């Protein structure tokens, strides 16, 4: 039950039923219209779905899927490293280290990822004569952008821990690097794991930007197949299949994030709970970083 509605009485129940019926009818009408348009445009004819049976096309799509996953894996690992390094830089006590790190993180978060990829791919090639392949342009762009977002996530995670944790560690005579690596980071990573994985979903989604610089990933092959006249130009069926692939991959990752979140909510250890140590401090909510990216 949400905040807004009381437990319904007889009149409210009747109204809700009516709304339910009207809503169902409206939604069904929309779906029926879409299906009708698809059918009228001949998108259900066997001709435009034939391509699924061809072995060469299946291999082509598998290859495209591999290219997407390869870019995702490399970009994910690199952005985690980038994020860890720059989070450490921002948390440093030395201004000569923390200021540039802050500036770099803020800079790459403010620029659209696509512009970053364009700079790496077209800019460096045509402007500075440095050759970068489409693969590396996508991966490095993803690393710079998502790495910066991850740096913020790591930092927020460390900041959300109770102060007593680091105080106790310092009190035991640990040095700053020891406090970080043995005490703060393990807890912060555990608390932020769901957010980190949501950000990895963003990385996976944004590999699709490679399409715009002709990196041969899923969307690129979809465009290519969709333009093939001898297959009946099946751009809609191909787009539907590609969408299903992308959505199921991302849903799988999101589901993992949800499972982890539920697990960490159950376990007391992983919860950053400042109230236990400092009742005056306001609950430091981790920044809603998931929304800051393309998605």
């Amino acid at each position, binding site marked *: 039950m949400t905040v807004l*509605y009381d437990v319904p009485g007889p009149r409210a129940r009747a109204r809700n039923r009516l709304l339910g019926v009207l809503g169902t009818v409206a939604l069904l009408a929309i779906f029926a219209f879409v299906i009708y348009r698809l059918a009228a445009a001949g998108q259900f004819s066997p001709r435009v779905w034939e391509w699924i049976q061809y072995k060469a096309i299946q291999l082509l799509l598998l290859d495209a899927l591999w290219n997407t996953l390869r870019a995702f894996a490399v970009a994910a690992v690199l952005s985690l490293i980038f994020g860890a390094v720059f989070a450490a830089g921002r948390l440093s006590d030395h201004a000569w280290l923390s200021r540039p790190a802050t500036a770099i993180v803020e800079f790459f978060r403010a620029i*659209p990822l*696509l512009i970053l990829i364009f700079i790496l791919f077209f800019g460096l090639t045509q402007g500075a004569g440095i050759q970068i392949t489409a693969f590396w342009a996508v991966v490095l762009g993803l690393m710079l952008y998502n790495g910066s977002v991850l740096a913020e996530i790591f930092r927020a995670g460390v900041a959300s821990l109770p102060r007593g944790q680091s105080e106790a560690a310092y009190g035991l005579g640990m040095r700053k690097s020891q406090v970080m690596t043995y005490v703060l980071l393990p807890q912060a990573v555990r608390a932020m794991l769901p957010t980190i994985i949501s950000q990895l979903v963003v990385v996976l989604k944004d590999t699709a930007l490679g399409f715009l610089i002709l990196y041969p990933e899923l969307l690129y092959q979809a465009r290519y197949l969709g333009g093939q006249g001898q297959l009946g130009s099946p751009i809609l069926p191909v787009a539907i299949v590609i969408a299903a692939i992308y959505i199921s991959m991302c849903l799988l990752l999101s589901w993992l994030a949800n499972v982890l979140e539920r697990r960490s909510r159950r376990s007391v250890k992983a919860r950053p709970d400042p109230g236990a140590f400092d009742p005056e401090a306001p609950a430091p909510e981790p920044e809603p970083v998931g929304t800051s990216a393309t998605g």
Partner: protein
Amino acid sequence: MNVLLDNLGLYGSAFLGTIELFVVAAIGSLVGGLLLAAMRVSPVPVLRAFGTGYVNIVRNTPLTLVFFFFAFAYPRLAIVDLSFFTRACMALIVYTSAFVCEVIRSGVNTVPVGQAEASRALGFSFGQTLSAVVMPQALRSVVPPLTNVQIALLKNTTIAAGFSVFEAGGIYQRLSEQGYNVLIGLLWVAVGFLILVVPLTLLQRRLERSWSVAR
């Protein structure tokens, strides 16, 4: 510097295109997100299920794919012939609405149930409860993350440039045709986005600090 000064008109019209797209899509996504959020918190199971399904699917779809649909697949359906600008707006609205919906929904859910119960006990009608008790409180936790979503939308408008060239992200193609240095041209585009995004980010941080409620 020459690249910018020689092409001031090009940059001007391109960034105008970006801002136009942003404003239309921002208004559209706010309306769409509000509708979806109303569905998701409504006591009608069908609407709730549709809202949840929509949000879960759209949030897990790459925006480039949404654009792909509207750019290449939509014209095949031959429903209404729309300009690319309109289709770009629709793609951005379809995508961003899901994020706006989630922000509004979680904002409404931060209001303790007791607040609404107390106002009902005082005899407030649904409209009064919503406008005088729940919304003023929800708004405070909604606006900062909502700014975040809109900043992301502003940056996402560049994807339209990958499909057509009326927008700031497409400047490099014109410059490249005219033989200018593309790297410098693109860096100026980046500077342009910094000028647009940084004030919004500062506003967002300020809102977050001054509007956050201690509960």
